[in-house]
């Protein structure tokens, strides 16, 4: 029984320059309690896919269900069971950490006392306990990222979507976050779908990798499977495997210039 299942999920943006086929057709099945890593070069369509799965963006093709709720017919059901941490976050810089965490709990309809308790608990889990009364705008980049993540965990979602959760975190915080994700899964059976450009992270954290390129799934399997299948040996590096699959490097944004952000985008409209 799959907790997430998509068939031909697609999204084309209409822009003044013409249509942009950001996601062309994603077929994906995720089992309950799985941690799935969504990888792919810049502009591959990872964020767009997550925004569809969290009901922020209506698909222009295909269908999907999350925890048995259809994206289009029952968006409210999808929202109740899922948590989402966006790539660029989403906290109000003028409000305090406590205020944002409590309000977030209330938005998920927790009673007030419970929302307050949950805020303290999450702050402790994510190393924000001393910062509760600080304005979100006065946090460091990594602290703010941890706040974003806490916001997504408020209501103990059955399905958690994390878009590049560890970008900007120091190595210690990143290891802590991996630990937290594993613990949330172990304790609550939470299903996690996360995107990342850090291949060590994908290797260490994900049970299964789904590699997306130009809006379609180009490979799907355990890290070991993929290395065996695409790089010829289970001991190959994920970097080599990734290059073998996508033909261009997965690298932090700044070093991805040649085949990076422009590559897939530029080719999308002509092919559409």
């Amino acid at each position, binding site marked *: 029984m799959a907790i997430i299942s998509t068939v031909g999920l697609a999204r084309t943006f209409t822009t003044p320059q013409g249509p942009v086929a950001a996601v062309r057709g994603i077929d994906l099945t995720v089992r309950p309690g799985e941690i799935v890593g969504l990888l792919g070069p810049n502009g591959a369509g990872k964020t767009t896919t997550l925004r569809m799965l969290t*009901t922020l963006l209506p698909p222009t093709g295909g269908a999907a269900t999350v925890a048995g709720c259809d994206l289009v017919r029952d968006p409210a059901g999808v*929202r109740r069971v899922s948590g989402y941490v966006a790539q660029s976050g989403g906290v109000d810089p003028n*409000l305090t950490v406590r205020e944002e965490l409590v309000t977030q709990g209330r938005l998920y309809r927790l009673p007030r006392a419970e929302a307050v308790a949950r805020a303290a608990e999450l702050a402790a889990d994510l190393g924000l306990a001393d910062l509760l009364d600080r304005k979100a705008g006065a946090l460091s980049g990594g602290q703010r990222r941890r706040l974003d993540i806490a916001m997504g965990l408020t209501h103990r979602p059955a399905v958690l979507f994390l878009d590049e959760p560890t970008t900007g975190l120091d190595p210690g915080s990143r290891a802590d976050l991996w630990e937290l994700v594993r613990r949330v899964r172990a304790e609550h059976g939470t299903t996690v779908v996360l995107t990342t450009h850090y291949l060590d992270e994908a290797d260490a954290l994900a049970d299964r990798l789904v590699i997306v390129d130009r809006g379609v799934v180009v490979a799907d399997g355990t890290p070991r499977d993929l290395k065996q299948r695409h790089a010829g040996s289970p001991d190959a590096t994920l970097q080599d495997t990734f290059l073998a699959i996508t033909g261009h490097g997965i690298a932090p944004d700044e070093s991805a210039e040649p085949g990076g952000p422009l590559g897939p985008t530029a080719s999308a409209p002509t092919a559409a």
Partner: protein
Amino acid sequence: MATAALSALCSDTALIFSRYARQTLRSRFQMLFGILMPLLYLLFFGPLLTDLPLGSKGDSWQVLVPGLLLQLGLFGASFAGFAVLIEKQSGVLERMRVTPVSRLALLLGRVLRDAAVFVFQAVLLVLAALVMGLRAPVGGVLIGLAFVALLTVSLASLSYALALKVNTPQEFGPTINALTMPAMLLSGLMLPMTLAPGWLDVLSHLIPFRYLVDAVRAAFVGDFASAHMLYGTLVGAALSVVAVTIGTRVFTSAGA
């Protein structure tokens, strides 16, 4: 089922209202700044009118203050959408939209906060006007405040809807300016349209605010059973129904 949905809507609206009300309370300066313009008109423009024949019932304060009240609502509420543009850029809006919170509450909570702020500002303005020499029936003033609240709800809804639709502040600001300036001039906010030549008077009847201004002026001189009052109420009610419907549509449509 329906009552559960309704109570969820009410508690979500209260939650959103209090979030933004707290924000407003933190920026008291902004709240006072909002009444600066009408206050300046009251102080430096009002005295010019006291001896002029304005061609309408009541003294000059009974003509000017209703105009200033609606000016306050017109300018304040029309720009309310800026806050949504900022939240769109910071990701706050999307973060709220992935939660089960009622879409309608995201609109109503904000709009009600705006209405509360403007009623507060309007009360200050009326108090200042009393000091300057305004004399008007209490019932008339209360009716005037109700109209300001109605206008605020309508314009703020439209402003939020527009802010969700456009992508940049550069598109939003000029659009609002282009709509509010003619609306202000053509509705006779500053001076009654009874002074206008025929063509201008006709043109001004095409602007919904005209009816609201006339109604509030009628209320300030105690003409509660007049045609102005009736038309103003009808136009105000119709405007708010249309505006809130548009706002609701935009806020509830996926991907907005």
